[in-house]
């Protein structure tokens, strides 16, 4: 046994040999603390806590657990009691899930957790939707959770259920590598940037802030950060990032709040950046990206193909993709024509929300401007749970216009690999795949991942049809998702052929 015994532990130690064979004697309680803790770890926190009423020997044993999982016990006092136990070891894991916890109830145990935690803290505070509005008033009334400084924790993932929080003004998060804050209301004035920047979080590698209120100005200066993900920071007015090691930045729906309609102001200096997802309002006059010579992946806001464009999303997308082009007023009903050029792309990923309409015209339009691509990844309707989206539109629908995509020549001579996700095998989708075979004369590999709701027999029929359009030199891979007891985790190769029989 590698580690030393506590005084109490040594006293409890027994000789490691078979005694009289047990009988009515309580040999379990005579086991060493370490062993009993190992057993209680397998019992789980809530059942382990109930062993505290067995006898004096068992009274506080469960408090020695190095991992605590309060997923089914939400009582703040029980959490506090376990964390406060004198002589307990550092915590490698603390999971708390609560329903409707308030700033006051979390404050009962969070400072103790900060003192003991060496590993991971996961907090999930589920707030019923009706309670959120009340809480907003509660926050105004002044109940604010003072976040302690976690001096030795490695990972913090807090979903606060819109509790109002204040960040510690001083202290170093000296071992923190991952910080994730969800559904959080920052109490003003809030200097999140100071807390996550290098002087106070010297080893922070990944930062995620999602669905936050009260953060109007975020300024991060970090030598260590590799990934920053900001989503739904309502009311964000200015973002400054200086991060020499950063490789991925995601900014999603922070500036584009339709109610605020504020000008996005940002200054990003991240010379090692490889992935940038700016799915947000974009204006090159106020959003400045420094040198990004290593950028490999650029993600944009969605683009509406049809409609009276009011929301500015298309403009955000186009300004990011066509920085040198003067945009006219976007008035056409078929909005794809506003997109007149794209950067030189090698791998193109397109997610299309078609809702049953034709995808051929708009995909053709994008491909026509991306003739140097080597790989195409196409996902269809992945966000749509609407059953109507699965039905095809009526035959009189104008979505299949303009029709040039069926007749006009398109040479994608470098395109070797195509992957299509969430494939349903609708008429519109099959028509597009058929055209792709014609456009990509050098195609070597095509993978079709069927939508999980497609039955195996339907998938097989669609496979046969696609194989009839294919060429012998193309490796065709088909996958369907089969429901297993643990959810949609099992992907099964339905067919896998290298050479087709003519």
């Amino acid at each position, binding site marked *: *046994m590698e580690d030393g015994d506590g005084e109490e532990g040594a006293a409890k130690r027994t000789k*490691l*040999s*078979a*005694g*009289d*064979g*047990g*009988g*009515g*004697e*309580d*040999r*379990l*309680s005579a*086991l*060493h603390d*370490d*062993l009993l803790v*190992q*057993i*209680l770890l*397998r*019992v*789980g926190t809530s*059942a382990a806590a*109930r*062993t*505290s*009423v*067995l*006898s*004096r*020997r*068992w*009274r506080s044993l469960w408090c020695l657990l190095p991992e605590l999982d309060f997923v089914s*016990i939400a*009582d703040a*006092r*029980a959490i506090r*009691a376990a964390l406060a136990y004198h002589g307990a070891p550092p915590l490698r894991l603390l999971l708390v899930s609560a329903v409707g916890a308030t700033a006051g109830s979390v404050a009962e145990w969070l400072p103790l957790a900060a003192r003991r935690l060496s590993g991971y803290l996961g907090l999930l505070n589920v707030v019923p939707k009706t309670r959120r509005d009340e809480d907003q008033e509660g926050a105004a009334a002044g109940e604010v959770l003072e976040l302690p400084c976690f001096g030795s924790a490695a990972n913090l993932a807090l979903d606060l259920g819109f509790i109002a929080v204040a960040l510690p003004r001083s202290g170093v998060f000296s071992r923190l590598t991952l910080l994730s804050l969800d559904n959080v209301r920052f109490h003003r004035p809030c200097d999140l940037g100071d807390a996550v920047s290098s002087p106070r979080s010297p080893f922070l590698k990944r930062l995620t802030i999602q669905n936050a209120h009260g953060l109007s100005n975020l300024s991060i200066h970090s030598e260590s950060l590799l990934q920053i993900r900001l989503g739904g920071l309502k009311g964000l007015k200015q973002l400054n990032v200086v991060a020499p090691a950063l490789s991925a930045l995601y900014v999603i729906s922070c500036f584009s709040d339709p109610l605020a309609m504020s000008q996005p102001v940002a200054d990003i200096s991240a010379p090692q950046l490889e992935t940038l997802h700016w799915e947000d309002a974009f204006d090159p006059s106020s959003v400045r990206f420094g040198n990004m010579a290593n950028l490999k992946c650029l993600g944009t806001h969605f683009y509406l193909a049809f409609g009276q464009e009011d929301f500015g999303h298309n403009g955000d997308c186009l300004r990011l993709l066509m920085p040198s082009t003067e945009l006219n007023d976007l008035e056409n009903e078929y909005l794809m024509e506003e997109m007149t050029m794209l950067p030189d792309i090698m791998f193109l990923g397109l997610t299309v929300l078609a809702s049953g309409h034709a995808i051929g015209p708009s995909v053709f339009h994008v491909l026509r401007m991306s003739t140097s691509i080597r790989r195409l990844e196409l996902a269809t309707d992945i966000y749509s749970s609407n059953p109507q989206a699965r039905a095809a539109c009526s035959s009189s629908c104008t979505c299949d216009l303009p029709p040039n995509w069926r007749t006009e020549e398109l040479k994608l001579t470098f395109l070797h690999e195509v992957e299509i996700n969430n494939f349903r095998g609708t008429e519109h989708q099959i028509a597009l795949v058929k055209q792709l075979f014609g456009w990509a004369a050098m195609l070597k590999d095509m993978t079709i991942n069927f939508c999980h709701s497609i039955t195996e027999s339907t998938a097989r029929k669609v496979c046969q049809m696609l194989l009839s359009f294919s060429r012998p030199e193309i490796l065709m891979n088909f996958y369907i998702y089969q429901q297993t007891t643990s959810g949609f985790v099992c992907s099964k190769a339905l067919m896998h052929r290298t050479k087709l029989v003519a």
Partner: protein
Amino acid sequence: MATGSGAAAAAADAEEKESGSRMITLTSNEGKAFVVTEASARQSATIRSMVDDGGCVDKGFPLPNVDSKTLARVIQYCDEHGNKEAHTVDERAALAKFDKDFIAELDADKAFLYDVTMAANYLHIQGLFALTTQCIADTIKGKTPEEIRTAFGIEYDLTAQDEEEIKEEDTHA
């Protein structure tokens, strides 16, 4: 090996080590010697590190904390897991069946189960330790305190003050 007398001997030694055919002697605290394959002995991380550090393989390993009865049972587990393959589905199923029968037999004799648990902990035999501690944990899970006391022969010795505290905790739980 540090004790090897020449390149050829070292090579032969390495080959033997590779094939797992070398035999190792484990001695209980009652002085009884058990000769096992190296593959079987390597189930124990404690012995594995001593062997790899070039320890006294020839002299064997005395285990002053383990009695003969317990050691025999522990070796039964190590032989099964060390000497048999677990590559195919059938082989893994056979091992799972062995574990199930092994632990069912131990569970019937709690004192012996604790001895094997302590030996598995001392010898760092991860699989065996997981098997025995899980078995004890399963007995605790889903039972009332009174049922747990009965199952393990735990004596109720809480004081009035303890009971008061428990009552206090219960009102908040």
